[in-house]
């Protein structure tokens, strides 16, 4: 985190238990003013519970939530200067787009003309032509339009922090990508603090300044997207980032190790020495793997058979078999194409692999 910026929200040792089940376990982090912060985790990781505590719909069992230094544990959602965009969007179905956006202003008792001007501005900001949409019923809007109305309504509340509970998950991939970029633009232009929750690390990577990865109610890693990508703390984080190869290894002294492929073990060289007998995972990214032609050298080489190849546009993805049941994923540029069904030798440089705890 940029230490010069004062934290707007501080989560200090927060735990939430439902009966005997601990949904969030002693979590601490800080969100800086104006930051785009994302909580990522698979379902059941406690990310939604954590979010509900941050907006005030659940109370922490222990720990403190501090907004600009003030403890807000017991402050009701309607009294908090924060606002959430729900997964279901939760638009008011009996109101027009305009009335939805004006809702928080009407609650505050703003004058009709003032409400209308603000709603008009916000609809424009979100690329919804106010002339067409102001009087439209929200139930007639498309998925993308409804997203924008929900965001406009939340911005009309003028919150200090805007929370998002996976609002984009119901949209198709293309629209989701467009809206991700728009969301980032709006965050930048409004200079608001955004706190986003998602199960997709890819989504988090696109938008966020910082990402926190949750597993079973505990934060596994927290940092900038690039940091996490470059040095994942453990195999869970690495796996969560998408298709990676994680090899089960047992160190056999110094940098030598055996790879447990299920059939016969294969000896490998590790990027760093490891005490003999320790079990670890070796991370090798698909793009770090390459087919080695005879005479060429690499840190590690393994004979493989190419099972399948898929086109990813500019790249080709190969599924290769080391031993029956043990496959690796390789990604190469299109021009370095190899034929499927052929035997090949796969290799990678030592610097491109990382030893991780599982």
């Amino acid at each position: 985190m940029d230490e010069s910026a004062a934290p707007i929200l501080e989560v200090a040792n927060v735990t939430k238990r439902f009966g005997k089940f601990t949904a969030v376990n002693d979590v601490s982090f800080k969100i800086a003013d104006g930051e785009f912060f994302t909580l990522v985790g698979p379902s059941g990781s406690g990310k939604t519970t954590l979010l509900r505590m941050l907006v005030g719909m659940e109370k922490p069992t222990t720990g403190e939530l501090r907004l600009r230094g003030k403890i807000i544990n017991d402050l009701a959602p309607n009294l908090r200067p924060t606002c959430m965009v729900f997964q279901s969007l939760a638009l008011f179905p009996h109101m027009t787009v305009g009335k939805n956006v004006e809702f928080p202003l009407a609650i505050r008792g703003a004058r009709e003309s003032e409400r209308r001007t603000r709603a008009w501005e916000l609809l424009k900001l979100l690329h919804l032509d106010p002339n067409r949409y102001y009087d439209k019923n929200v139930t007639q809007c498309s998925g993308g339009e409804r997203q924008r109305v929900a965001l406009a309504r939340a911005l009309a509340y003028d919150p200090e922090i805007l929370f998002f509970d996976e609002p984009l998950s119901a949209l198709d991939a293309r629209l989701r990508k467009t809206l991700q970029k728009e969301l980032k633009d709006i965050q930048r232009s409004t200079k608001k603090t955004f706190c986003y929750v998602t199960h997709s690390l890819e989504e988090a990577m696109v938008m966020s300044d910082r990402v926190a990865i949750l597993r079973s109610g505990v934060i596994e890693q927290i940092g900038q997207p690039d940091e996490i990508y470059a040095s994942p703390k453990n195999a869970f984080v690495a796996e969560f980032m998408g298709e990676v190869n994680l090899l089960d290894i047992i160190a056999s002294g110094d940098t030598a190790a055996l790879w447990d492929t299920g059939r016969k073990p294969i000896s490998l060289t590790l990027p760093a020495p490891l005490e003999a007998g320790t079990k670890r995972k070796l991370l090798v990214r698909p793009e770090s793997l390459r087919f080695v032609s005879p005479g060429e050298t690499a840190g590690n080489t393994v004979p493989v058979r190419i099972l399948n190849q898929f086109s990813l546009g500019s790249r080709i993805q190969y599924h290769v078999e080391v031993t029956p049941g043990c496959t690796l994923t390789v990604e190469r540029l299109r021009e370095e194409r190899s034929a499927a069904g052929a035997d090949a030798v796969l290799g990678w440089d030592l610097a491109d692999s990382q030893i991780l705890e599982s």
Partner: protein
Amino acid sequence: MSGALPVIPPKSRLLERVPGLIGALSASPFALLMLFGFVAPLLCVVWFGFMPSKTFSLLQAPTLENYETIFNQTYFKSILWSLGLASVTVLILLVICFPLAFAMAKIFKGVASFITYAIATSLFVSENIRLFGWVIGFMKNGVVGGTLAKVFDVQVDSLLYNIPVIILGMVYVYLPFMLFPLVLGVKMVPDQVREAAFDLGASRWQVFKKIDLPLSMPGVMIGSLLVFVLSVGAISEAKILGGQKVVTIASDIESEFTYAQNWPLGSALSTMFIALTTVVVFFALGRFDLEKLLGKKPAE
């Protein structure tokens, strides 16, 4: 969407007509029942209202003398009593039932179905029997009076035969007809929509006024209409608990057909009352467009 649509072979004309035929055939028993059991008697009643007073034939020259009688005498009083009692019942039931419906739809889990069974079971007992039970409770030295006298040494006269006890009886009898539609109405309000309003700064009262009430309006309307239509024609509560302290229009109509043996006047009163109720109900339905409330139709 692209791609070829499957080619549908042209249907034969008979095939096209068969579903319609089957539909018409299966609807006909009900249509006949409604025709002979509802429409025909209703038309008879309307026509009987135009027959000369105290006669028993439909085959006479029509006259307006019954309607003249109605307007010259004090029947409007019983009509007002009926409308008034029904309106008060609806209002009281709305106030009582909304919190209970909210609790049953959103808060109680297993208890909600117990309450549903308990209330539905009370409907198994005839309304008159239940009302006579109340009479035993409220009469002089009855359950309530007797208990007060024995335990607290307070002497009370009969608690029956007044307007509050009539309203109490009506509220009690028609409670299920308000409660169940309200439960369905409240269930239609999504939790996240309520939470969103709260999160956007609305107080509990504002959430109720701006979210809960408008979104559960279909249930409110259906419950209110059911209770209004049923209670405006109520007769037993005023008779049994009210002891004819108040004469409702339904009991006026009954006495014309029985004691007075004046069928034409009874028919004219019925016709007028049906017309009045219809106007009130349609006025209410027109003011609250159900489809618009349900969000199926855009706002004009």
